[in-house]
């Protein structure tokens, strides 16, 4: 590589810029180009993926000089390239703020860059075939580019302000993509829901950022971490801002109770779901918590307990819903929520490395699952698992890659998901009490069960006549699936402590102390037994049908009903909207109409008008009446003066 070491990192800002530039180019010139300009978008993200390797290489070769230094929090080489944007106020004066846009390169950033660029590239290649013939083909790719660019900016940002801008851009792009088929009412509703629900969390994020700014006086993340570490920020402020930041993360990462938007986001095209669930949008929340981890763990790490509890509740609740859902995409959506909960739980249990590792393993597996599901939906045009079954006979490739994804997320050994889930279990076991570890293991069991259920219901059993015409995925769809399949299969290997210079993912993305890959025998054994047991059990139930669940269903019909209705979260929100929001807005509307409009605005106008009507009678239009009034007035005035004089 001609460009030497640390130089390349300075140019990392080009990664999002490629895609940012591609978006308007596709919109404006796309209609004149072959393929509606989709290749511009793909080239841009491919360039980003290439840049990721260069940045990784230059980071590895860099030394702690110049812009690079060893972070106090992570003990890792961190590089910060800050560029001044503008000054709000007078330079150097009290109360003036200099706003920067800069990039921060550390292992977390690099890992995220790799995940986002790779998955986005795969999804875009896949979309070439999936979206073929859509009237808004070019627009789709433009938004895709913008989405990836926003997420990459979010990942690279070295200050909270830029992060917030990118955060909102991610939100608007998800809105546009979820509502891509806006001819359908349900898609419009889902897009609005996603945008509004995540906005609720964003308010928390903004307040958190401003709180930090008030105490630190700068938006720079490194300054904030330094202030939290040295005690320049008081405990109350750090705790409050950490929890507020987490509120934003909860919205984006679909944590209870803000998870309601994610299942509905299925209304978008399936590749969009793959992108949202694996690489952009939902992982932004997990990334935010990981990025601002120094704030969470300062002062006894109280906020982490909140993170752990929310994560656990989300993981467990969503897993149960995924177990009873019948819509294939919905199963995957709840599975994503559950795994995001696991990542949050892991962060809440100091399992920084495990969370990031799981984010990547889950990202590859879930992208694979969604692309596989997309292939199924594309071909069968059904979403209900009940309409499928036995599809492995007609679409073998899709069946294989989908199974790899399912086994990986189910936690079957040697696949990526197994290793990362194991790391999470270890972190939870080490740092949280026994209730947590038991419930986490139960979640892992449920996760294996629902993945097995989805896989067996769709691809195994009897093939239905209606699906006999089904064909396997075309090349543009198969290629990304195979690549992702290989990653889901082998990605776990990077966690090992290989001999030589590479010490496993623990030495790459880690926090505070170098965390080598380790393996608790009893935990590993329990999780393997649970995962394999779950798959065997599911096989008995759904393929061999030798175990009937009817009895269990009947006995627990009450609980089942609650779970099937997704714990009535949507109903609860609807109730709040109907009974609280609408009633309150009706009051506001009444106040606006009766007080502001009728009295304050129309009132003076009304008085003026009435006066005018009363007074206009003197304007007769006859000259002699005016003259008479003039004469009478003069005489009156004369009399007045004369009487005063006399």
């Amino acid at each position, binding site marked *: 590589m001609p460009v030497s070491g640390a130089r390349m990192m300075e140019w990392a800002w080009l990664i999002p810029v490629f895609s940012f530039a591609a978006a308007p180019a596709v919109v404006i010139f796309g209609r004149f180009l072959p393929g509606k300009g989709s290749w511009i978008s793909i080239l841009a993200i491919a360039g980003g993926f290439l840049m990721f390797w260069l940045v990784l290489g230059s980071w590895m070769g860099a030394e702690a000089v110049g812009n690079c230094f060893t972070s106090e929090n992570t003990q890792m080489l961190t590089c910060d390239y800050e560029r001044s944007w503008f000054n709000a106020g007078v330079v150097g004066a009290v109360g003036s703020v200099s706003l920067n846009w800069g990039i921060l390169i550390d292992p977390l950033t690099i890992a995220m860059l790799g995940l986002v660029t790779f998955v986005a590239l795969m999804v875009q290649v896949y979309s070439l075939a999936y979206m073929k013939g859509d009237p808004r083909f070019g627009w789709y790719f433009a938004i895709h580019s913008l989405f990836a660019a926003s997420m990459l900016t979010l990942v690279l940002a070295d200050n909270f302000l830029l992060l917030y801008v990118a955060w909102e851009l991610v939100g608007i792009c998800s809105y546009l993509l979820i509502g891509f088929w806006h001819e359908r009412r349900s898609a419009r509703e889902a897009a609005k829901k996603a945008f509004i629900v995540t906005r609720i969390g964003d308010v928390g994020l903004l307040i958190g950022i401003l709180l930090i700014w008030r105490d630190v006086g700068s938006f720079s993340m490194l300054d904030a971490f330094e202030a939290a570490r040295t005690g320049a920020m008081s405990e109350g402020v750090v705790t409050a801002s950490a929890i507020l930041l987490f509120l934003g993360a909860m919205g984006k990462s679909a944590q209870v109770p803000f998870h309601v938007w994610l299942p509905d986001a299925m209304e978008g095209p399936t590749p969009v779901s793959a992108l949202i669930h694996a690489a952009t949008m939902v992982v932004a929340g997990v990334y935010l918590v990981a990025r601002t981890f120094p704030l969470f763990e300062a002062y006894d790490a109280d906020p982490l307990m909140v993170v752990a509890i929310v994560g656990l509740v989300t993981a467990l609740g969503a897993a149960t819903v995924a177990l009873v859902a019948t819509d294939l995409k919905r199963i995957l959506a709840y599975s994503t929520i559950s795994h995001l909960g696991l990542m949050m739980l892991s962060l809440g249990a100091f399992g920084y490395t495990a969370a990031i590792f799981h984010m990547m393993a889950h990202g590859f597996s879930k992208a694979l699952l969604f692309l596989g599901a997309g292939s199924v939906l594309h071909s069968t045009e059904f979403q209900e698992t009940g309409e499928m079954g036995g599809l492995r006979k007609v679409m073998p490739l899709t069946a294989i890659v989908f199974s790899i994804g399912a086994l990986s997320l189910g936690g079957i050994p040697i696949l990526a998901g197994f290793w990362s889930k194991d790391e999470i279990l270890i972190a939870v076991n080490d740092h949280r009490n026994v209730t947590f570890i038991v419930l986490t293991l139960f979640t892992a069991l449920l996760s294996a069960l629902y993945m097995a259920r989805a896989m067996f219901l769709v691809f195994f059993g009897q093939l239905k006549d209606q699906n006999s015409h089904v064909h396997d995925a075309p090349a543009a769809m198969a290629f990304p699936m195979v690549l992702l399949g290989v990653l889901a299969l082998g990605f776990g290997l990077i966690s090992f402590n290989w001999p030589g210079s590479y010490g496993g993912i623990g030495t790459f993305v880690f926090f505070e102390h170098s965390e080598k890959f380790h393996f608790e025998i009893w935990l590993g054994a329990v999780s393997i037994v649970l995962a394999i047991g779950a798959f065997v059990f599911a096989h008995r139930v759904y393929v061999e049908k030798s175990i009937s669940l009817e009895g269990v269903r009947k006995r627990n019909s009450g609980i089942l009903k609650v779970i099937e209705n997704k714990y009535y979260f949507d109903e609860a929100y609807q109730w709040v909207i109907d009974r609280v929001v609408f009633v309150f807005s009706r009051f506001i509307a009444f106040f606006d109409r009766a007080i502001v409009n009728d009295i304050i605005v129309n009132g003076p106008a009304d008085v003026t008008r009435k006066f005018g009507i009363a007074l*206009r009678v003197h*304007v*007769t*239009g*006859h*000259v*002699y009446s005016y*003259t*008479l009034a003039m*004469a009478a007035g003069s005489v009156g005035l004369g009399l007045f003066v004369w009487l005063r004089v006399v």
Partner: protein
Amino acid sequence: MVDLVWFQLLSAVLFVIGLYGVMARRSAVLIIMSIELMLNAVNINLIAAASHMEGIGKFSDFDGQLIAIFIITVAAAEVGLALAIILRMFRNKSTVNVDEINLMKW
């Protein structure tokens, strides 16, 4: 020498006739003429006072005559302006009857 009070009586009579004309006439031209009459009634009053009150108080006989000449000047200008307005009025509405000029009335 005729007593001052007769002049003042004449002046008052002319003024009231003028005022009546302004109030009672419909034709704008006649109104203008009535206004002229009122102005000249005032002039008579002023001139008579100037010739009778010479040497009384701080007034000289010039003061009254000066104001009278001033009024004649203003009246000439006013008639020019008024006749121009009446001419425009007639061009637009084909009448000089002020009762029909009531655009500004509600």
